[in-house]
């Protein structure tokens, strides 16, 4: 079936079978490989994207059902400028292998949007994103820092 997806501000037209997930459409058809397939079952969070500004597991979302704009980790930054959350993840070393990182960052941006600042709130909110390298302590630090920086960045706009 023919569908149109708005990915990171660009509208893409593609022909996919009804059973194709948003994750596979992004990765295999559109070359948007930031979102990762860690389980394909909604159990790891590596495929987390934003649909219409809300976090969603792209492996549990059929591409053909998506009507709102999709943002992936690639859509957060410009070639010149990292998103404050991306910079915080790099600076706090909130990653090791990096495979979970695109999903972590999309959830982290959502945590910041909700104004979560207490470590326990952040831990709870970020618990849908597994990190087998277990960078959890630095992820919490990065989310706190990235959130406050994001606030500052917004304030200056």
């Amino acid at each position, binding site marked *: 079936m023919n569908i149109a997806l708005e990915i990171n501000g660009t509208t893409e037209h593609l022909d996919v079978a009804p059973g*194709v997930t948003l994750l596979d459409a992004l990765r295999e058809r559109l070359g948007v490989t930031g979102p*990762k397939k*860690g389980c394909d079952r909604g159990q790891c969070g590596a495929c987390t994207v934003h649909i219409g500004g809300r976090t969603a597991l792209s492996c549990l979302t059929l591409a053909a059902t998506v009507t709102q704009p999709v943002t992936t*980790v*690639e859509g957060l930054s410009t070639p010149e400028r990292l998103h404050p959350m991306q910079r915080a993840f790099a600076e706090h070393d909130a*990653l090791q*292998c990096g495979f979970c990182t695109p999903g972590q960052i999309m959830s982290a941006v959502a945590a910041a949007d909700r104004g979560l600042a207490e470590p326990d709130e952040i831990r709870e909110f970020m618990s849908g994103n597994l990190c*087998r390298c277990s960078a959890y*302590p*630095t992820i919490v630090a990065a989310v706190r820092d990235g959130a406050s920086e994001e606030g500052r960045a917004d304030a200056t706009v």
Partner: protein
Amino acid sequence: MTARPDAPLKVTGRATYALDNVVEGAAHGYLVLSTVARGELASMDVEAVRAAPGVLAVYTPFEPLPLHPVNSALLGRMWLPLQDKDVRYHGQPIGFVVAETFEQARDAAALADVAYHERPAATSFSDGLTSAVDAQPAASEAPPSLTVLADGVASIEDALEASDVTIDATYETAAQNHAAMEPHSALAVWSGGELTVYAGNQAPHLVASDLASAVDVPVDAVHVENPVVGGAFGGKATSMPALLASAAAVALDRPVKAALTREQVFTATANRPATRQRIALGARRDGGLVAVRHDSWSTTTREIGFVEPTSHGTSREWYTTENLAISQKAVPLDVPPATFMRAPGEAPGSFALESAVDELAEAIGMDPVALRLRNNSTAPPGEDLQWSSKHLDECFEIGAARFGWADRTPGGRRDGDWLVGMGTATAMFPGLRFPATVGVTLHDDGTADVATAGADPGTGLLGVLRIVGAESLDVPQDRVVPRLGDSRLPPGGLSGGSTATASAGSATMVAASTVIEQLVALASSEEGPLRGHDVGYAHGTVYALDAPERDPMTFGDVLRATGRSTLSATGTTAPGEETTKHSFGSWGAQFCEVRVHRLTREVRVSRLLGVFDAGRIINPRTARGQLAGGMIWGVSAALHEGIEFDDDGRMSRRDLADYLLPVNADIPDVDVQFVEHPDTLLSDLGARGLGEIGIVGVAAAVANAVHNATGIRVRRLPIRIEDLLEDG
């Protein structure tokens, strides 16, 4: 600049993992796995599979993909999929379907109709104990059993009998899966007689040679790339999808992508085996160890293969004791193969030994830290080779003060509905090096590459190459470009055995000093800008020793002046004489506080501290990440992870919902400290590895803390709520 060189790529989604490579016309492969645990394939009806939309090829043991024998440098003789009809475990690869799209391959694979001649399978560890056999512990040349007795002592039993205090207990640890977030996957491209394979792994040069054997092409026609790897932990020495995709790409003459599903990862790779360990300790009243006996059983396949070396990895070396007896047995079962997983031997072995030491401390009435220090060894028991640089006492002293160990009371303490306890344990991991070659190339633009085949699956090796390269060339770090993850680079930097930093780091130093010698010779040569002068090198510049008025020249200046774009050298290092003079190991003290709910018996780890003696720390930031990650793995082994089998031999927990891993909310802040004593007897670099030691001892520290909190001694991992119900 200590951030990971690849952090900008990783946080923007631009890091290219195996399956992120997009090539025109790639077909997709999907594996079919066995649904019985033992027997023989009677038939595989794949007509419907073949007829399904988009299907290009179906391979089974009845119509196999041609694969040739592989003698792997890392794994020895490798089992190759689809070559025979034997079924050795539930979830063994028995088919490979290649189709135009991923969905078509997956849907078609589900149509295979498989019939088996099924035979009764043995998957119960406890039932299998009666068929245990002596077995060579993995990665060791030692015999299965080993006894060291003091003069005049006839047997370990006599030594135990003669001890003032003894404890004797049996401990069990569950089988585990590495569960790296990136499932094993590959893209294989066959073009013009060359095979290029993108696959996450721990040593691309070794994987390239395995794949060359398997598909029977010259090794220099195989190119393996893994610039980033989504976690490995010992589980990516080989890759089933890389084997199958490579052979299919050659057979079909088109690129083939293949990945294991998360469920398939649990059986179509290899796991950490389950272990059972019996430990008897005998001591004098003052805590001095008289006798250590440690008998180990590891589950294995029927071919035995990998045997988790729990007693050889711990009791053999850790403490001073007059008498020592260790043994290793295998319990062959019809289960998926086993392999190295983070601290193989040391991780489950330390749960047993360090729980036993805690039990002994209680029996004697001695502080667990004091008991450990009382038996601190200067050399492995019965050996002359002293530890090169061991500061375990300092780790415990700093740790105890920082953690508030003095506040621990024998019965724990109460905080509302929570029972709070503290536990400690020793950590140790051998200080090893493997042969490694690193290339250093100076460029005329003033930058330098530091390159080795190797892999950085999150360990921080890429940053280590940059730091050590910059320091050895005496230039700022931003002038050094580290390169890894390409089988065409000089062979080295295997990510395994906590060896990469010590091995590739010291080879970098050799390569850098060689290239500097060449540069100096070039500068003063007939064609050089400083011809006829005595030439020195400092701060990245070449200068005339005998003409101080002349401006120093950067290496870029020298290259441009001589009309060259680059100057390269390689450096190779390997373990040498040092191993005949000293014993080498990293050491650590683990501290843990747990809170057990009085009524629900839920266990929460509330504090974790590890103090480590790992030689020189090259990059404190990534070193902390490795060690904290390892410590969290220890919590996971203690409270979360465990593979189990149903009665029919099927693995009962094989996805990320049922195979429990800690999530962020399970983990407190983790305090990682170093005592930094460079180990220059191991190598000029002074660094020992730290990828594995973080996990060692943690599960025991958790169990010891649970005992302190509740009075209940749990000797089986993972600790379950039901283990804590008695006395509740």
